[in-house]
């Protein structure tokens, strides 16, 4: 975020109030502030795909439509990331159904083998990214929020509406599964 010295920065709640009163430039500023975070979460959840951009835009459209219901109980960031996670989970569900209908579904103890093939010339970053996309959604969501987006365990728990203990155990399981999968490529 660019801050000009001496110029008071507008807070999220001020922007929300302005947006509620129909100020579209205020809403555009909200989008500008959070598009990176939202995109990071969606790409982490879904991997590189055509739908990611659309889902990112859908997050803000949903927020705009629900502006008057936003009471500020949770921070704007938490609220937006929660929408992003929910829409990503919907997309994963949609893909699963699609895959099921095309008779190409394999699920195995927390690891979902999706069609994210790792080539021999893939770099480490790509391998990790594709491996994360192979984790089942419940493990993937905690891993993306905690490791990629950098939220604390408590923040992750708040976004996903889970107890901290559950987040910690899912993180452990996610990392364990990821290590099993990456053993072949990295270690």
């Amino acid at each position, binding site marked *: 975020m660019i801050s000009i010295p001496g110029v008071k920065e507008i807070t999220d709640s001020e922007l929300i109030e302005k947006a509620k009163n129909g100020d579209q430039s205020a809403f*555009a500023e909200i989008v500008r502030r959070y598009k990176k975070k939202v995109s990071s979460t969606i790409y982490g959840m879904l991997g590189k795909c055509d739908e990611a*951009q659309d889902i990112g835009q859908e997050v803000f459209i949903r927020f705009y439509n629900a502006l008057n219901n936003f009471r500020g109980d949770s921070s704007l960031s938490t609220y937006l990331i929660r929408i992003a996670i929910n829409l990503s989970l919907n997309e994963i569900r949609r893909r699963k159904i699609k895959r099921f209908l095309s008779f190409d579904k394999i699920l195995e103890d927390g690891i979902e083998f999706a069609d994210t093939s790792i080539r021999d010339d893939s770099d480490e970053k790509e391998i990790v990214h594709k491996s994360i996309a192979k984790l089942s959604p419940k493990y993937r969501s905690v891993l993306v929020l905690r490791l990629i987006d950098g939220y604390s365990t408590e923040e992750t728990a708040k976004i996903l509406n889970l107890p901290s203990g559950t987040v910690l155990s899912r993180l452990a399981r996610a990392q364990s599964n990821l290590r099993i999968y990456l053993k072949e490529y990295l270690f």
Partner: protein
Amino acid sequence: MKNKKIELLLYKSFDSELSKEESESLNKELESSDELRELYSQTSRIRELAADSASYGINPFFEEIVLKKINEASTKNSSIPGMSEQLVHSFAKVAFTATIVLVLLVFYNLNKGNNLSIENALGKSKSPIEVAFDPTFNLIWTQI
């Protein structure tokens, strides 16, 4: 990993503060177990790579696209009136057409009857109802 409890403790150490006892127990195991040390270094590497793996390209016109979609949706919604609005709109059209038809009929009646009375304008007949329904009534009546 044979000791599941220690493995979980190791993972926990990355994301949460350990109690003094937990910390001591983990350090003790790390000193004695090569397998646990390997797990520690692999997990650290995975976490580093994961943190660095966020790669995404955001459309440079992201905000504009979002606002355009919002505006398009609101225009679409405002162009679809509710049922009550549709009824009011339709009624106005029907009422206007009916008024024109009535005015035309009044002029037609006035013109045909060659008389400026209200009865004539409204098409009221001076004949009794029997005559209106039976044109031969007057004929028969006069004959009698």
